[in-house]
């Protein structure tokens, strides 16, 4: 089950999707965090971010919309409170980094250069903030620019989380690779809306939100498949994974590892069930190494 992503050893190919796992405290009540390949924490910005007005959550068919808006206490509080907590477990720490400008992204990454973490995930794909975020991830020139600047500041491997809300995700992926990304995380949420028909207006306080959950999985698998063909850097696949077989689809499409998000909000053990499900699949099908599965759907 071991995988190596950009020089970082994972005990299995499963992490948590940023924003669905906090910094792991809530989940540590349910299972030993050391069972995970990595913990990917909620987006960290330079200064504290208040987040968006409520309501922030809407249920949709087979999924959910959220418009949290990256509420977080800022990088200083993260370094002070969360890294020591997570270092209490034998697990890789991936820090999702968000910002409103290239300078802000770079400043967070510079601040984290001396921090005891394993990987960085650059969030240029959040649909819930007014400036920055998705604006970088939907323009290949800006993607290249922000990744290049962040890579220069980074002391840990830098993964870049991409948005599916683009005409051609492979083009953005190539721009990130050219900018120096060590890997890619895909996908972030799809921009969506729900109308409250009683109040005759959008239900979410922010009007739009990010769609996640099983409903988006085919879009995510397609994105991984497409990007795998376009780049040489490793991919962490995510978007609606609930079971081991869902995860295997992503691996076969070309992901070297996967992340479990929304499913974990509904069933805190989901991420553990996914690890066990992959293991079971490998045993049943006679695989001994994850590498044998990664990208195998392309050998048809």
């Amino acid at each position: 089950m071991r995988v190596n992503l950009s020089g970082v050893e994972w005990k299995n190919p499963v992490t948590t999707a940023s924003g669905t796992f906090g910094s792991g405290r809530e989940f540590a009540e349910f299972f030993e965090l050391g069972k995970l390949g990595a913990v990917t924490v909620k987006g960290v910005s330079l200064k504290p971010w208040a987040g968006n007005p409520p309501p922030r959550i809407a249920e949709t068919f087979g999924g959910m919309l959220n418009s949290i808006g990256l509420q977080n206490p800022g990088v200083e509080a993260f370094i002070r409170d969360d890294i020591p907590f997570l270092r209490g477990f034998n697990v890789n720490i991936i820090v999702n980094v968000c910002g409103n400008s290239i300078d802000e992204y770079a400043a967070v990454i510079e601040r984290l250069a001396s921090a005891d973490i394993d990987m960085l995930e650059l969030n240029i794909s959040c649909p819930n903030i007014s400036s920055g975020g998705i604006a970088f991830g939907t323009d290949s020139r800006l993607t290249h620019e922000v990744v290049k600047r962040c890579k220069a500041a980074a002391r840990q491997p830098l993964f870049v989380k991409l948005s599916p809300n683009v005409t051609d995700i492979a083009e953005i992926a190539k721009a990130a690779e050219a900018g120096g990304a060590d890997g890619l995380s895909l996908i972030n949420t799809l921009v969506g809306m729900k109308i409250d028909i009683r109040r005759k207006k959008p239900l979410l306080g922010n009007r739009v939100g990010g769609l996640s959950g099983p409903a988006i999985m085919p879009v995510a698998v397609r994105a991984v498949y497409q990007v795998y063909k376009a780049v040489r850097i490793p991919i962490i696949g995510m978007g609606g994974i609930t079971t081991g077989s869902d995860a295997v689809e992503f691996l076969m499409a070309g992901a070297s590892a996967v992340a479990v998000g929304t499913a974990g909000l509904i069933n805190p053990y989901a991420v553990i069930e996914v690890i066990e499900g992959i293991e079971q699949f490998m045993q049943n099908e006679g695989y001994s190494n994850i590498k044998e599965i990664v990208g195998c759907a392309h050998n048809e």
Partner: protein
Amino acid sequence: MINSNNALILKNEQVARDIYVIELHIPNITFICRAGQFVNLYTGNNAMLLPRPISICRADKNRGVIKLVYRIAGKGTEIISRMKPDSLIRVMGPLGNGFKLEHGKVALVGGGVGIPPLLELAHALRENDDETDINVFIGYRNNETFLLNEFREICRHVDIATDDGSAGFHGNSVDLFKNGDTTQADFVYACGPLPMLKSLSEYMRNRADRLFLSLEERMGCGTGACMGCAVKVRDGANWVYKRVCRDGPVFTASDLLFDIEGA
């Protein structure tokens, strides 16, 4: 310790229009829960993934049974209302922080499905101190006065209001409380719709530090991970969003800002 497992449904019955009582055999939650905490119920339907957070109405620690009273608010609770006794439902809890138990003269003010958690609170206050003078002011839509007898069994003073005037005071629970609270209570606990809590907070603005409100909000996970259920809470001269599920659901009225959409 939060538990997540299947519970056996012992009873699931309608008690008023759109209002149901469900009893679940789930000892590990029942033994540790406190008044004011809630549980997540799951529909088991893959199209409706999110939990339905429901406050605990009564915990029978001898039998390991919790009682919940819920309103059909949409398709998810409608599915739950059709679940049969002897079948299983997935439950997570107990979640959130309970009410802080005070002494002296206390008032419990509840409206609609805000009434149920006050029953467990009344029991907890009583068990904590037999001297506590518990005064209950609860408002219903009409004369389908669910849980009323159970309040009367343990509280000397129970006043009711109905929106349509078919029983008790014609009006809402806040007006009922204003009329009845002539010798002011030392502490007031309230649960109900946001406009009700807001109006009660305005009425008690000079003693808002003695008013404890149990809030509702659309939730994602219920455990604090997703940051979905935000409420504005004072933070010095500024404010921050706190999580209703993890930091609440009970807040002191003097800490809240109440400019939430829909309030």
